[in-house]
């Protein structure tokens, strides 16, 4: 409550779950818990009557009060604290146990291996040996199907990715004559097709630019644009490399500046001074190649 950053984390955590779940039903539940979290912030958790919900509220409260990172909860520590708090708040222990079970399902992979570690650690803490993991109900509850989250969490914490790149032989042979001729045939065909498409594109570009220039004629926009284009062209010419990215040409990395530079480079590309290309549409970086660079 007093720690806004952690609260934000908890909300984020819930939103993350929401984004992974497509079923209407589960989203509704998460919305409900989100709402509950807001109520806890406003000190309203006392009004929750359903023991199950109250138990959940308690879990949230604990995370917030103890400054736990919801992305990285030490489950043994958490369950110890939680069971203690549940006793204090007089929440029925079966419900509380279900919550812990659920949390365990959510946060860790359901592997015998991990369960074993939990058990051993649990036994070391004598105080809570009475709490038996095997007695927990294996009923279907919200988020129990949410192993994707626990997997993501585990993977992010594992330094080594699970995929190994195998070593295979890098065998290469020379190109056969038939392949060479095939390639020649195809290249001729493709080049002809490409030229046809380019021609159509050029005509369409020409038409659009004429139209745009006509519209801007005599306006202040035109003056600015000419000036901007000149400035950007100077920058490209002075750039120490033949190829640069759009951002290399922007002084400030602000939206307005980027748009200004982008429009200028589009005109320069139209004038055949540079080539503009993007590695992947629509989020890939935009690159500029100075044709006359030597």
């Amino acid at each position, binding site marked *: 409550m007093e720690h806004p950053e952690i609260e934000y984390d908890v909300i984020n955590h819930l939103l993350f779950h929401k984004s992974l779940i497509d079923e209407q039903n589960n989203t509704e539940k998460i919305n409900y818990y989100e709402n509950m979290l807001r109520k806890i912030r406003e000190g309203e958790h006392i009004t929750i009557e359903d023991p199950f919900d109250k138990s959940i509220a308690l879990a949230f409260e604990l995370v917030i009060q103890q400054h736990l990172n919801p992305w990285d909860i030490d489950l043994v520590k958490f369950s110890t604290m939680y069971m203690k708090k549940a006793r204090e708040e007089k929440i029925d222990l079966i419900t509380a146990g279900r919550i812990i079970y659920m949390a365990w399902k959510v946060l860790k992979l359901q592997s015998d291996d991990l369960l074993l570690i939990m058990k051993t650690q649990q036994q070391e803490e004598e105080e809570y040996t009475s709490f038996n993991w095997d007695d927990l109900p294996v009923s279907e509850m919200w988020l129990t199907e949410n192993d994707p989250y626990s997997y993501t969490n585990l*993977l992010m914490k594992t330094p*080594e990715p*699970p995929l190994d790149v195998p070593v295979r032989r890098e065998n*290469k042979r020379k190109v056969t004559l038939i392949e060479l001729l095939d390639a020649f045939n195809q290249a001729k065909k493709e080049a002809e097709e490409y030229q046809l498409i380019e021609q159509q594109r050029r005509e369409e570009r020409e038409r659009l630019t004429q139209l745009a220039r006509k519209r801007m004629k005599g306006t202040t926009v035109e003056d600015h644009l000419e000036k901007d284009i000149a400035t950007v062209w100077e920058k490209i010419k002075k750039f120490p490399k033949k190829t640069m990215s759009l951002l290399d040409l922007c002084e400030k990395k602000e939206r307005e500046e980027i748009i200004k530079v982008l429009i200028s480079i589009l005109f320069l590309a139209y004038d055949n001074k540079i080539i503009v290309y993007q590695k992947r549409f629509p*989020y890939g970086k935009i690159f500029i190649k100075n044709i006359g660079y030597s």
Partner: protein
Amino acid sequence: MSTKEEKRIIESILFSASKPVSINEIKETTGLNTKKIKKTLEELIEDYNVKRKNETSMEIIKAGDKYTMQLKKQYTDKTIMITQPEIEKHLLKTLTLIAFHQPLKQSNLRRMIGTKAYEHVDQLASMKLIHTKKHGTTEMLTTTKLFPEYFGIDATDPEEIKNFLMKKTIEKTKQQR
């Protein structure tokens, strides 16, 4: 043609292909029928991975729908100086996330790993390991057929891939302890 000779021919194909090969590719090259090829591949797998297990550093495995000869895991680190560089660890993790959650929205991947998601998606798509498909304002990400082939995973459908990754991750976690 004797069975021994067929075995040698299929072995030589696996050795020289540099990438996993399909039964159809073997068929086209050798003219043998599918049944015979399958039988011979099984025998080769048995030879390399069981009978001669301790007398070779190579293994023959099923990768996706294809077959390949590759180094056994325990020898890959030892030859690393001689062979090509690996894919960056972070990129492998991102790929794992996509493979595990597939179909995964790019916007969700962004929530998981931040803005580097875009760059990673670009790289993985250009390596042909993932597909991207427009989905409203975001992209839907899935792994390609190349994915299991590339990593030598004997699984083709998303559910099997998921299980494989789950198992592998747990193994790796164990190793670190």
